[in-house]
């Protein structure tokens, strides 16, 4: 699997993502500047990492969604390419319309930086097949706007079509609707989630709970 990591100004977890991908893929991902209009030839997986693209001024992810590279990402997704958005990356995917809903300010209006537990809602996807269904794993979160929201119809559809990827399993700190921490697009090839599996891929940094995500992608 050939991975491209997008770099928008203000993104700050791209190095973390490079480390996680490098470790599982055994190959170096390409980092792509947001002003590019094409993805590198042969890109299978596009990763939108975390951070504060354009300062998250106005709305998280809103300005990044308008970046030139996002047209190529949409085309990639329409072709059935894989896309992973983490934290700000998830926000950018909702702003772009590649995933439904939106991420509002955390219910408590404070930035939340701590470990959280995530439950794997389905394991028959290219992202989650290294976990058991229902498995609970630890993932650090670090966000001010992770409060997932969508209208009831959309939420029901997400549930009905089994598109919820992860739910918070140890309390819902940010106020997300139905404890949703991550969702898939209907083709199961686009995943967005708020917490950071890429920050738990090394025992030295506290554990390897997040590694199955990258191992699964590497094997796909």
């Amino acid at each position, binding site marked *: 699997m050939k991975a491209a990591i997008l770099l928008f100004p203000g993104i700050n977890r791209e190095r973390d993502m490079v480390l996680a991908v490098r470790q599982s893929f055994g190959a170096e991902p390409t980092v792509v500047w947001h002003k590019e209009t094409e993805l590198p030839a042969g890109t299978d997986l596009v990763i939108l990492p975390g951070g504060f693209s354009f300062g998250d001024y*106005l709305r998280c992810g809103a300005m990044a969604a*308008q970046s030139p590279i996002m047209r190529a990402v949409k085309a990639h997704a329409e072709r059935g390419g894989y896309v992973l958005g983490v934290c700000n990356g998830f926000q950018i995917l909702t702003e772009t319309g590649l995933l439904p*809903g*939106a991420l*509002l*300010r955390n*219910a408590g209006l404070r930035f939340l930086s701590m470990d959280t537990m995530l439950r794997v809602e389905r394991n028959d996807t290219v992202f989650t097949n290294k976990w058991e269904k229902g498995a609970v794993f630890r993932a650090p979160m670090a966000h001010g706007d992770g*409060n997932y*929201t969508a209208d009831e119809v959309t939420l029901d559809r997400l549930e009905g079509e089994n598109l919820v990827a992860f739910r918070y399993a140890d309390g819902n700190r940010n*106020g997300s609707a139905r404890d949703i921490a991550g969702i898939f697009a209907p083709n199961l090839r686009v995943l967005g989630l708020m917490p950071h599996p890429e920050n738990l891929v090394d025992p030295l940094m506290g554990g390897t709970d997040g590694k199955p995500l990258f191992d699964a992608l590497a094997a796909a």
Partner: protein
Amino acid sequence: MKAIVTVMLKNGVLDPQGKAIGHALHNLGFPQVGEVRMGKIIELELAETDAAKAQTAAEDMARKLLANTVIESFKVEIAA
């Protein structure tokens, strides 16, 4: 001209900031406060002399960037 774009969360979308402000106002001794909604206001200087054109342009900007119409609604006013 100046365009003033007001962006509010749609009815029915939970407003964590509005809720927190309402709570804080009660604690500060303002029991008369009922629902609170918080939104954004964006003032744009436009190099434009035609109010109708300014209106159209600002609406376009709101749809493309300033508001996320999944959760927000907007309103544009033109001032001289």
